[in-house]
């Protein structure tokens, strides 16, 4: 525990609240001092990479296991179709059809087949890329078109980072939005979760759901309020009431929106933001070591 990196996950109840902006800026800021890895776990739509131009240092395919029909061995007993809860294998007369995208790799059909006619083989589901820009390592995975299950790829991507960057002090996860299973997978082994939101009724509503989600996972967390100054104080009041630390209030400004829109790092242009990042980082590191709470 003491020697593994502090894993900081950045999540939000909804997309578009500044999650990727915070993740990329925080990672780049840390990289000014030390090596750090940013892992984009929004594998359906990885976006962090749009903000960095780095050297590709490693690339590999992601795989999952699926059954493959071995026709001569099959006795057409129909068991495989019956046991697959996901309708990923069908018996259509004298043919067994496997639908790789629907398969959840549970092995039931393969292991229960009485004649071993459905051995498991690996199938590519997407691509993992690892980039480097000086001190910053950036890992992302992208699902192939048509591939629907994000969770195994998220888990695999984390594993890659954990194995290759165990010597670093900090790992940052840019998580998928929402409160459904991909977010759970992405935040599951984080030491600290930063929830980012906007001080608006939508922001508040999504934040309450995100907090509820992180509470079921029993994760220490803090909130960053983005575009502070618009909307109202309901988010701040809510956090106070719920006893959740507000890590930073990033001011609303048209300048930030403009910098973001052209893919530029915000803290490099706005010193105030740099200071906020430093505060956020300090708190996260203390909290993930268990020094707070």
């Amino acid at each position, binding site marked *: 525990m003491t020697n593994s990196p502090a894993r900081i996950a950045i999540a939000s109840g909804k997309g578009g609240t500044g999650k990727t902006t915070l993740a990329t800026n925080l990672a780049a800021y840390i990289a000014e001092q030390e090596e750090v890895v940013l892992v984009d776990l929004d594998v359906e739509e990885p976006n962090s990479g749009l903000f960095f131009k780095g050297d590709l240092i490693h690339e590999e395919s992601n795989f999952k296991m699926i059954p493959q029909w071995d026709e001569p061995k099959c006795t057409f007993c129909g068991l495989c179709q019956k046991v697959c809860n996901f309708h990923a294998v069908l018996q259509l007369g004298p043919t067994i059809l496997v639908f790789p995208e629907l398969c959840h790799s549970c*092995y039931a059909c393969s292991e229960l087949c009485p004649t071993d006619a459905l051995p498991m083989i690996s199938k590519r589901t997407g691509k993992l890329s690892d980039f480097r820009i000086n001190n910053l390592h950036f890992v992302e995975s992208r699902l192939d078109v048509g591939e629907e299950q994000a969770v195994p790829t998220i888990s695999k991507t984390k594993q890659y980072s954990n194995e290759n960057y165990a010597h670093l002090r900090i790992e940052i996860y840019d998580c998928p939005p929402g409160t459904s299973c991909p977010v759970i997978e992405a935040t599951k082994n984080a030491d600290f979760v930063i929830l980012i939101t906007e001080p608006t009724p939508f922001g508040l509503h999504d934040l309450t759901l995100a907090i509820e989600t992180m509470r079921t996972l029993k994760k220490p967390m803090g909130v960053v309020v983005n575009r502070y100054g618009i909307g109202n104080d309901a988010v701040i009041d809510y956090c106070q009431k719920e006893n959740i630390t507000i890590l930073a209030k990033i001011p609303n400004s048209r300048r930030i929106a403009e910098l973001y829109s052209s893919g530029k790092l915000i803290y490099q242009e706005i010193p105030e933001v740099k200071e906020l990042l430093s505060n956020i980082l300090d708190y996260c590191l203390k909290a993930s070591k268990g020094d707070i709470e």
Partner: protein
Amino acid sequence: MKEIVIISGKGGTGKTSITASFAVLGGNNAVVADCDVDAADMHLLMQPDFDFSEDFYSGELATIDANNCIRCNKCAKVCRFGAISIRSMQYVIDPLSCEGCGYCARVCPTEAITNKNRLAGKWYISNIKTGSIMVHARLGIGADNSGKLVAKVKNEARDIAFEERKDIILVDGSPGVGCPVVSSLSGANFVVLVTEPSVSGLHDLKRVYELVKKFKIKAGCIINKSDVNPKKRDEIVGFLAEENIVHLADLPYDENFTSAMTQGQTIVEYDQNSIKTLLTSSWERIKQLVINQNHNR
């Protein structure tokens, strides 16, 4: 009956605020379906009365009856998702890890394992302030957004529109390019793409439009915060022309969107000037395009 779906590829573009504005402009002739079930927000602007609600089940979840368990360990051995563990001498299944594949129950010698339908959220029918009806939902924490809840919301909205003889179904679509969006788009007559001029905005727009193309649905586009990055805005306009997407409007960066929201209002109720005019003419244009399409058939 025409189905208009508003999507944006990714969140934060103002999609929901724009959909809500169209709901107000459409008045009691438009049934609203909030298909953004993973982050359903639109109800905050619609004053829903949650008239009807029902639990939503999706997929399965295995549970072990400790009384019948002989602790043979077979289930734990076959589970590929690490969902079965021993806690204080009992075999238990972690609901967040269980994939609902049903394999464990098939190997259990004592039938101690049962598969139950998994509670995955709730859905509602509400009367809303426009005098119309809205179907909305809330996906449960850690649930699998397979598109089934989206399909449910849409289907209920269709049935209501049919029974109540409404002409329009307005759908706040799901983000991303996966199953939920596919369910949001299925059966639509027109798609409104909401985007913003940023690096990621154009990228997401292109990705989601690939999907729209597959469905062969006519599309229009609203560029929100268009003045924040004029160069990117022009790039988007170029893309629209290339793909023959109707450029419906450029909306300026305007904090009134948020001010309206804090009052629980849509921008067309709050702002009486430029944005209202722009959205009203977009809405008229959309209606026109949807009706014309009918003539062509």
